[in-house]
């Protein structure tokens, strides 16, 4: 039982990180109809920004983390929007989908060539010490991940629902034409979405890399987990993405122990198939309401 609880906590911690990536994925889809097939690489990359800042810039870890966030905002936020999404979205969904797939390959190979093909250890923000709470051994690192991930999610939810800018972003996501008619600066709201996605990817990267190491190819699994989490959650809901992320995280930790680590990566795929078969609108999702 204690083992199970330990596993559950580990699963929720990984799941919360998947949720960060899935929320970003969902927000991008909602506000700009961008399905970002490079989302996994977006989570892989910021850790390497930090590693590079430490290795070549001699930066201390905390500064390297800030550099990673700043670079992510710039490259995965502003440049991604300005150089890839904006020019292509006019031509429909398909060119953009293909470009994000191309981007994912480019980022993978870029990191492999520029940094290393080996998995890199990544410093943990919290010490990996076990403490015992009510007979259950939990690692401080996991607790730290949980607190940060849920803290970020909480702040984001508050921002989207509790501030006027956040509500203007929601309005833009729900109906951009009407938002424009009311004078909402729609373009700026879309930019904010890209920045939030970049920041979420950076957070996810800094949290997951100490657990699974930083590796050029880790985006494949991460991207799949985020994608499935978003689908499980209904694809157009932030709340759904949170639930989806946690479900995927818990199931893949359980599968790794109770079934076999070899099957761990199959968990998201199995979930995806089940969802498509039995609940195509997602767990919390409703039928698509957007008026096109």
């Amino acid at each position, binding site marked *: 039982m204690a083992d199970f609880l330990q596993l559950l906590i580990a699963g929720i911690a990984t799941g919360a990180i998947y949720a960060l990536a899935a929320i970003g994925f969902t927000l991008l889809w909602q506000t700009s109809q961008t399905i970002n097939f490079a989302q996994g690489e977006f989570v892989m990359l910021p850790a390497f920004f930090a590693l590079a800042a430490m290795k070549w810039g001699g930066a201390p870890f905390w500064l390297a983390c800030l550099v990673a966030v700043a670079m992510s905002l710039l490259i995965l936020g502003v440049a991604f929007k300005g150089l890839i999404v904006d020019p292509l979205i006019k031509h429909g969904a398909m060119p953009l989908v293909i470009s994000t797939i191309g981007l994912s390959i480019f980022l993978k190979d870029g990191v492999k060539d520029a940094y290393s093909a080996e998995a890199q250890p990544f410093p943990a923000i919290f010490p990996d010490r076990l403490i015992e709470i009510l007979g259950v051994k939990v690692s401080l690192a996991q607790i730290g991940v949980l607190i940060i991930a849920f803290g970020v999610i909480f702040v984001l939810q508050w921002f989207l629902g509790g501030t006027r800018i956040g509500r203007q972003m*929601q*309005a833009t996501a729900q*109906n951009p034409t009407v*938002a424009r008619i*009311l004078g909402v600066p729609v373009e700026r709201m879309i930019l904010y979405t890209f920045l939030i996605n970049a920041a979420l990817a950076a957070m996810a990267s800094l949290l997951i890399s100490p657990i699974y190491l930083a590796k050029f190819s880790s985006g494949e699994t991460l991207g799949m987990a985020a994608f499935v989490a978003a689908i499980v959650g209904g694809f157009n809901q932030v709340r759904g993405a949170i639930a989806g992320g946690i479900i995927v995280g818990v199931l893949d930790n359980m599968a790794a122990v109770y079934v076999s680590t070899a099957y761990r990566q199959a968990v998201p795929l199995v979930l995806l198939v089940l969802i498509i078969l039995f609940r195509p609108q997602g767990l919390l999702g409703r039928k698509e309401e957007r008026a096109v």
Partner: protein
Amino acid sequence: MTANANTHQSGDALLLLKDVVSGYGKMTILNGTTAAIRRGAITTVIGPNGAGKSTMFKTIFGLLPVRTGTITMDGKEITNSSPRQMLDMGAVFIPQGRNIFAELTVKHNLELGGVALSDQSGLGDRIEDMFTRFPILREKANAQAGTLSGGQQKLLEVARGLLLNPKLMLVDEPSIGLSPLMVQEVFSILIDLAKKGVTILLIEQNAKQALQMSDYGLVLEQGQARIEDTAKNILNDARVAQLFLGGGMAPAAAAAPAH
């Protein structure tokens, strides 16, 4: 093109369209539209499906580019203004269909109507005014807007538009899907606004009822204003009656059900 030029001095017009051409992609829909919309009056635009009525509103409000021609409001040229600039000029647009943000609360929907307000400190008072004017919205202030009935949603849209205290309202088929009682309510709000000096430009499928409460009418066909006259004259116009007012002729029957 203007059938009744002597009843029309553009001097008291708030909005002037001159030879406006616009459309979607390569398709031309407004094909040299010229019209003068009178200040403080209700003008109803009628015409067959696909005539370009909604396109005209979208073009005026800056959602579609004007290819050639000019649009003037209050003596200022506003051709190709952005929606935000139109709002700043005192115009609001309530498009066809459902335009509320279903997942936001009624109150937050209203609040979004105030995005373009130059003095944001007055927003709270204006929302309060709308709640006083439409008590049902106060009652539902914290409910998701999507849970309102169709009529209540339209009221919310109207209230959201009124928040800016506009001098020009473009309203595209507000009565669609509403109960007769609700249609009456929406129409009486518009009449009341016109009495207070607001200029209303309205599109209505239910042309007869709309013209009966309007001051002026404008018949749009194939992207051109064929007739501009008082609502009364248009109601009594045999050609119009045959085509658009449900005179029992085949074209009217074919045009009536869809929107």
